[in-house]
């Protein structure tokens, strides 16, 4: 009766426990799903919020996207022109020499006026493409006439590079030619390509740089014009935009002449304060967790030591010193002690007497038994192991006989 009741009670308990377990597991799964959704959402949010803009670096000789100029760089190298990609004006000045051509595009970050002046004083020729900053320093004497649409235009001039290339996508800034200059690809009142010599440098200014990009290089005579202009010298120093604008020398101002904005400037002011408030929250939480509910209780515990530690220590000592003599002695003495009562020999008997008695009992030759019980120490560890096994065998034989 009691047993039945107990079993029923147990059954009910088990059932409810299982149900509770299922519920708990279900709740756990729900929490897990929620956490996973939150994490995924947090990961996807920046991608959704980010503006839809092409990736890649504009007019960069190492960039293979549509706005990059990797194709031109490769073509130049195929024609034997050394392309040196630099990211700062200082590096560009350092790389420049009498036989170099310095390419400055609208993507080049010059930083300050001083940097532009140093660039302008650098040896070698200059090719300026598009809306480069500090144009008045880099190409003095040029005046902007108007801004024209970029389209295919004929050269209509005597410049060899332009004539050979033929029609090309030009436009952008239209320059008025200073005296002694050559203007090509006329648009509006001026020309979109102007070349003149200033202070010993040949300066070539282009109204627009888009024909240098991977996207447009293959159209019209773009590739030919670009190769003719950029490949005029054996070495081309290409001032490209760096990965980090802050690395640009004297990078206080950006390409647009506005102050460069660091990551800190882009964060709304409230976020800093919110982080500060979160620090306060963490501090409060730390205070909550740090306050113990009462003191730590200590207790004097007895020593924990195995009684067998001395024996194990002795075994390790034997092992480390390879003390085969002592080990063999101990094993033999123990075997003789166990054999003596079995053979009816007094405990005081010597090992030889025990060996003789054992040989007589088992019908073996006394020689090997004597060698086993009172022979020389084993030569190596294998012999010791064999000795232990042989002693066991002898003991078993005596016991069974």
């Amino acid at each position: 009766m009691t047993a039945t009741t107990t079993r029923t009670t147990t059954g009910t308990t088990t059932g409810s426990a299982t149900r509770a377990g299922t519920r708990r597991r279900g709740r756990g799964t729900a929490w897990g799903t929620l956490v996973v959704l939150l994490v995924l959402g947090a990961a996807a949010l920046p991608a959704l919020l980010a503006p839809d803009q092409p990736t890649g670096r504009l007019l960069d000789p190492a960039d293979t996207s549509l706005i990059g100029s990797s194709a031109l760089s490769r073509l130049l190298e195929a024609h034997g022109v050394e392309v040196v990609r630099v990211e700062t004006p200082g590096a560009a000045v350092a790389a420049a020499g009498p036989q170099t051509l310095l390419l400055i595009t609208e993507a080049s970050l010059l930083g300050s006026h001083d940097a532009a002046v140093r660039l302008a004083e650098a040896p070698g020729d200059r090719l300026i493409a598009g809306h480069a900053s500090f144009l008045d320093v880099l190409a003095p004497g040029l005046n902007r006439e108007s801004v024209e649409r970029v389209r295919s235009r004929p050269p209509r001039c005597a410049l060899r590079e332009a004539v050979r290339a033929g029609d090309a996508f030009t436009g952008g800034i239209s320059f008025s030619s200073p005296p002694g200059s050559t203007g090509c690809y006329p648009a509006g009142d001026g020309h979109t390509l102007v070349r003149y010599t200033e202070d010993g440098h040949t300066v070539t200014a282009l109204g627009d740089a888009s024909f240098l990009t991977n996207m447009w290089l293959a159209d019209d005579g773009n590739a030919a014009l670009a190769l003719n202009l950029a490949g005029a010298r054996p070495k081309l120093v290409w001032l490209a935009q760096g990965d980090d604008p802050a690395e640009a020398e004297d990078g206080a101002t950006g390409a647009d002449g506005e102050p460069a904005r660091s990551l800190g400037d882009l964060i709304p002011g409230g976020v800093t304060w919110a982080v500060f408030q979160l620090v306060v929250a963490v501090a409060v939480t730390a205070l909550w967790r740090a306050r113990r509910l009462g003191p730590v209780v200590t207790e004097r515990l007895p020593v924990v030591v195995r009684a067998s530690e001395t024996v194990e220590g002795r075994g390790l000592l034997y092992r480390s010193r390879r003390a085969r003599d002592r080990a063999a002695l101990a094993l033999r003495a123990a075997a003789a002690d166990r054999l003596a009562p079995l053979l009816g020999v007094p405990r005081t008997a010597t090992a030889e007497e025990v060996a003789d008695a054992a040989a007589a009992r088992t019908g073996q030759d006394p020689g090997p038994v004597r060698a086993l019980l009172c022979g020389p120490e084993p030569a190596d560890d294998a012999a010791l192991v064999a000795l232990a096994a042989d002693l066991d065998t002898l003991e078993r034989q005596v016991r069974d006989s």
Partner: protein
Amino acid sequence: MALTGRAGLLAALAAIVVLLAPEPGLVVLAAALVLAALVTADLLLAGGVRGLRFHRDGDNRVRLGGSLVIGLVVDNPGPRRLRGVLRDAWQPSAGAAPRRQALDVPPGERRRLVTTLTPVRRGDREAVAVTVRSVGPLGLAARQRTFEAPWTVRVLPPFLSRRHLPARLARLREMDGRHPALVRGQGTEFDSLREYVVGDDVRSIDWRASARRSDVVVRTWRPERDRRVLIVLDTGRTSAGRIGTAPLGFGPDVSAPGSDAGRGPKAGPGPGSGPGSGPGSGASGWPRLDWSMDAALLLAALAARAGDRVDFLAYDRAVRAQVSGASRTELLSSMVNAMAPIEAELVEADAAGMAAAVLSRARRRCLVVLLTDLNTAAMEEGLLPVLPQLSARHLVLAAAVADPRVAEMAAGRGSAEAVYDAAAAERLRGERSEVTATLRRQGVEVVDALPEDFAPALADAYLALKAAGRL
């Protein structure tokens, strides 16, 4: 005072407000002020803890392996309701549960909380402190205070070998002649005369008494009574070594010292500490001292039932505990009480002092049971020189627990490492058997048995001595 998680949550929520507010700096300041104001208000409105009074009730003795319940009455004389948590802190090896409990005492009333102790170690366990955290109505902050509410629980040796007692008592009755087997009673002490019944040993017929009466009368015999047994427990360094597997699942002191979260439900045997590690493989065993105590208790129970007087002495360099002249009914309880707080001292036992203590206590001839270790070095320097003094006046029985790990190592074969260990173990066994032989030559009885067999082996040795009339 103490803050709560709710205060932290409030501060974290304020961060969202700061993020959206037009003047974030001001909001941060305002949030801090508001939080401080709320916390202060909560502290002021929380029930006072200063005047709380505590009373304990419950048992103060438990056998190792058992549980007991300690009540704690919280008296709130203050004008406000006391809500919060209470921690009744005991020493870790007292196994107190639950670790913290909810508390709700209306003003002027009292509530009784219950703490269950499941000690994992022998000895005196003390209640260290009672800490009360009284949370305010908003749940943002709490007043906290720690009180002392002393209580001591003595955890007694478990006396696991008592299961061997009925069999030994049956043997004793057999010897006593009360058993139906009507042989000439073992023992040498004349008990009484009674009428001859068929089956009695004719050699026990008392002819003189038969001549006086018209009937045949036999003498009955019984073992000696009122002999003295002095159990001496060696509490020196050799008794600290751990042997075998702790029989209760946990060792006498498997406990997590002071850990805050680790003290889960540890009730009942076998939370994975004992059985996992094989026999003798480490610290999971019992100290030699505990095995000796177990055997001593069985011997004392048996001797008391056999009509002998039992005294107890624990000694290393001084007397650690003693029981003398206890009545037969009180003997066991006073012995476990005396044994409970004894721990092995890490000093070399002073055998000469021990012999002197024994000689001064036992004026008449008695059976001196020495519960010690048959350690060659300790024996040769300590006990052997003073043993003649003892054995001249008393019958000495030396009893020691053998280590199963040694036998296990001695059987090791196969690899060089195992054989070296086996040689070391054989060497120890050889030394031990030499010590045993030396002791026997001096007329000392020796009991050397594995932990599980130790208590019954000692009881059997006692019964054998009694049957042989050597007491």
